[in-house]
């Protein structure tokens, strides 16, 4: 397809990025999705909406987040100069809040009284519960039972924030199943409920809308790197489950041909075993309202994803990523569970920062990449979240090492 002069104008009117995206939902939801799209178009051009969002970003979330030069990590790897975009310093501990703020303001505009969301690692659930509390709206979070077990602290946080957390036992009890259940709730409670989707997936306009709310990451990065280095970065790296933190970082740079971008998928136990790498190990299909790459069988049945990180444990990926992969604008790689743990340890050791396991996938790729690049090569890694929530998982995996210390 023709990309004209910009890669930043998608999706088209029907919600397609190339052949990916769309609005593959039941008729019951169609009118709502069209309403949402209309309201979002209005909000986009409403200075008051942007002003309200700006105040919340600054005073409630603590933006802008720093662009931090990881000096010791850079030195240890002996190659490219590494900057971290500190989304882990946001209120609630990850980039997820950027999107939730935007969507809750839309929900208010639309007069909705009840908020629902799906969550994997719980970071989106916590961010949603947070904004719902902030605006005094009822909040229901769907979370897979497997994830509830491995992300207990986040479950407690959501409850403290007043949300009802509903365990989802169907399927493997992970993010995909939570999303099915949230969609079932939505189709039942169409009139009063706003569904805050947590990533750049789902039916149009969600992929575009979530991306736009997350693009603050890339916009700040652009300004900050110009201040610090006087030029654009050479490489951007971010982890990808559904892909919202990556889309947020990448999007403002898509038209800058000199900027190389790398999305890091969860390779789980390896691409020949259980994993969550939809682009590297999946095929195009239709799920949760959009056409994208999916882990699926020959018969079109969705397969279970696996990752050490609950936030990347999803068998699909946002449609804009599927398109950027197909036109080869962004390079997509995968990192295994074991490698992610190495990334995790490295950041703890060299920078005194405990990263989320999701972000550790991006860091693990840096461990491989940075040493191969010259010292004047600038990399920005999106440190999408902090690792407090992952203590249980990490201590289980690193029990022996920790015992030796």
């Amino acid at each position, binding site marked *: 397809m023709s990309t004209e002069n910009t890669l930043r104008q998608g999706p088209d009117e*029907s919600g397609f990025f190339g052949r990916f995206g*769309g*609005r*593959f*939902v*039941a*008729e*019951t*939801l*169609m*009118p*709502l999705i069209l309403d949402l799209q209309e309201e979002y178009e209005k909000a986009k051009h409403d200075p008051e909406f942007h002003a309200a969002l700006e105040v919340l970003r600054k005073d409630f979330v603590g933006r802008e987040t720093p662009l931090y030069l990881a000096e010791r990590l850079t030195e240890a790897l002996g190659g490219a100069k590494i900057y971290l975009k500190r989304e882990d310093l946001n209120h609630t501990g990850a980039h997820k809040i950027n999107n939730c703020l935007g969507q809750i303001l839309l929900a208010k505009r639309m007069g909705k009284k009840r908020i629902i969301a799906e969550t994997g690692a719980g970071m989106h659930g916590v961010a949603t519960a947070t904004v719902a509390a902030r605006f005094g709206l009822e909040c229901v979070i769907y979370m897979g039972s497997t994830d509830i077990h491995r992300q207990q602290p986040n479950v407690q946080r959501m409850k403290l924030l007043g949300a009802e957390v509903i365990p989802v036992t*169907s*399927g493997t009890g992970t993010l*995909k199943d939570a999303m*099915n259940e949230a*969609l*079932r709730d939505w*189709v*039942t*409670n*169409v*009139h009063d409920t706003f569904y805050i989707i947590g990533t750049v997936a789902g039916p149009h306009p969600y992929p575009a809308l979530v991306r736009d709310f997350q693009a603050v990451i890339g916009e700040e990065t652009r300004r900050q790197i110009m201040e610090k280095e006087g030029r654009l970065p050479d490489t951007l790296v971010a982890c990808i489950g559904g892909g919202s933190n990556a889309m947020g970082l990448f999007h403002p740079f898509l038209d800058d041909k000199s900027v190389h971008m790398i999305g890091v998928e969860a390779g789980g136990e390896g691409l020949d075993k259980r994993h969550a790498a939809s682009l590297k190990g999946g*095929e*195009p*299909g*239709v*799920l*949760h*309202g959009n*056409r994208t790459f*999916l882990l*699926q069988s*020959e*018969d*079109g*049945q*969705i397969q279970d994803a696996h990752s050490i990180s609950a936030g990347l444990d999803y068998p699909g990926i946002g449609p804009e990523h599927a398109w950027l992969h197909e036109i080869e604008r962004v390079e997509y790689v995968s990192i295994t569970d074991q490698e992610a743990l190495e990334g995790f340890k490295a950041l703890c050791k060299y920078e005194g920062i405990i990263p989320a396991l999701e972000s550790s996938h991006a860091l693990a790729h840096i461990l491989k990449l940075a040493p191969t690049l010259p010292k004047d090569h600038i990399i920005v890694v999106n440190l999408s979240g902090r690792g407090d929530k992952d203590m249980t998982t990490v201590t289980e995996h690193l029990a022996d090492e920790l015992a030796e210390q």
Partner: protein
Amino acid sequence: MTDTRQASRMERRFAALKQENRPALITFITAGDPDYANSLDTLLGLPEAGADVIELGMPFTDPMADGPAIQLANQRALASGQDMLKTLQMVRILREQDQDTPLVLMGYYNPIYRYGVKRFLEEAAEEGVDGLIVVDLPPEHDNELCIPAREAGVHFIRLATPTTDAKRLPGVLNNTSGFLYYVSSTGVTGSAAPTPEKVQQEVEAIRANTDIPIGVGFGIRTPEQAARIGQFADGVVVGSALIDCINKASTPEEGTQGVLSLTRELAAAVRTARK
């Protein structure tokens, strides 16, 4: 619109029922639930038990518009190894003994997309599939499957819902054929239906805009409910209540008997609906 082609099996069936002044009993089961052999037995028994139109579910791992009963049916079918080939094979076997009962395949788009739309439609038409209901293909995506299906001689049956307002209705009706499936409540399959009076109002509003038969589904579980809805609807769809017979059965054979026995009761009820 002048239509010179021969009436389809679906159209003949609805025309005949109109003559009889009674609604169609439309039954739903999931192909391969609880396993291929027993599901096939159930399917083959449905016409004689009184099903006028058969909906056969194509199992999918992620049935987002379905409630617990049909979710379980999908899981049982997939666990027993059901796939698209086997589902089409069931239709072929049905057609060897029954050439009059319209059969509609119902499900989600991904298994069809993965199978290949062209190949799927060719084989479905060949085996005697009369219509398709694909939950996650709204009119906005007619080019994906709806229009190719019409070209292949397979009806594309659309869902209209309580949220389908006057603005959307023409788009929903456009390219719909066979019958229109009115989903009586917002929610997933198996959820409770609103009052018959409310449903009747909605159905009559739609009827003012179309000549095609209107089937009503979601929340119809008993012969009494079927008879009540059948007073004004051209078809009454029963799904979750039949699937529950399989859910509750202690053996697969008992499940088949349960489905067929409830079908007989429903069939008797729709025959008295307008008397």
